């Protein structure tokens, strides 16, 4: 039982769950201990303890643009891209291979063009934090004459 409580606390420390979820899990663990039934409660608590947010496997990007944005007559244009999260993680590792001298030059070029991006800060742990916060993001882009383009980015 101590191991499961420790797991919950470690997940809370890592930011994988928030305080409310941690409290619910700990309560469930305590409730399972009080019930005392080895078979059912052990299954229930272990199921509850591991019932954390499932790690997203894919990043989806959906774009929907109407005629005014694309210039293509006849209807809307949709683009749907699904990228495995593993690919993003591998891409972040690729960024880590860039030599430090190149980092500095690239950072300078980015900031010159108004992009506040620091390559050295792109690390796998930062990506996990971004994924955790990227629950569902919808960006509406205003097109010409009030027509809108939708860009939706989410993890699943």
């Amino acid at each position, binding site marked *: 039982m101590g191991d499961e409580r420790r797991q919950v606390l470690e997940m809370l420390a890592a930011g994988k769950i928030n305080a409310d979820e941690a409290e619910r899990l700990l309560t469930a663990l305590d409730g399972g201990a009080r019930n005392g039934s080895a078979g059912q409660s052990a299954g229930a608590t272990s199921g509850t303890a591991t019932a954390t947010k499932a790690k997203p496997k*894919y990043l989806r990007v959906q774009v929907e643009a109407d005629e005014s944005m694309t210039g*293509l007559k*006849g209807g809307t244009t949709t*683009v749907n891209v699904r990228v495995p999260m*593993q*690919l993003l993680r*591998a*891409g972040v590792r690729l960024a880590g*291979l860039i030599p430090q001298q190149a980092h500095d030059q690239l950072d300078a070029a980015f900031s010159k063009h108004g992009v506040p991006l620091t390559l050295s800060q792109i690390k796998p742990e930062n990506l996990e934090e971004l994924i955790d916060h990227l629950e569902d993001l919808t960006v509406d882009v205003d097109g010409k004459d009030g027509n809108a383009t939708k860009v939706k980015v989410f993890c699943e």
Partner: protein
Amino acid sequence: MIPWGASVRVQWRDRVGRRRGFWIWVPLFLVWLILLPLVLVLFPVVALACVFVRLNAVRLYGTAWGILNSLRKTVVDVDTPEVRVWVRVA
């Protein structure tokens, strides 16, 4: 596991407005087999280049392999009024 195939479907409208299209399955495993000798030949060249630019060649190869292995289940769908293209990497 590296992707062993990709499914590509293309549809378009002909002059009278009917949808026409085709579907092909691309055997990526054959592409990897064809590229394998080239990779083996370039292996020492890339390693030497990494020494000059102060890159870790092992990490580079590992990352490239990781990217290749991550391509499975990638989906790209583009749907315009004139053409539809669907790509699925298996």
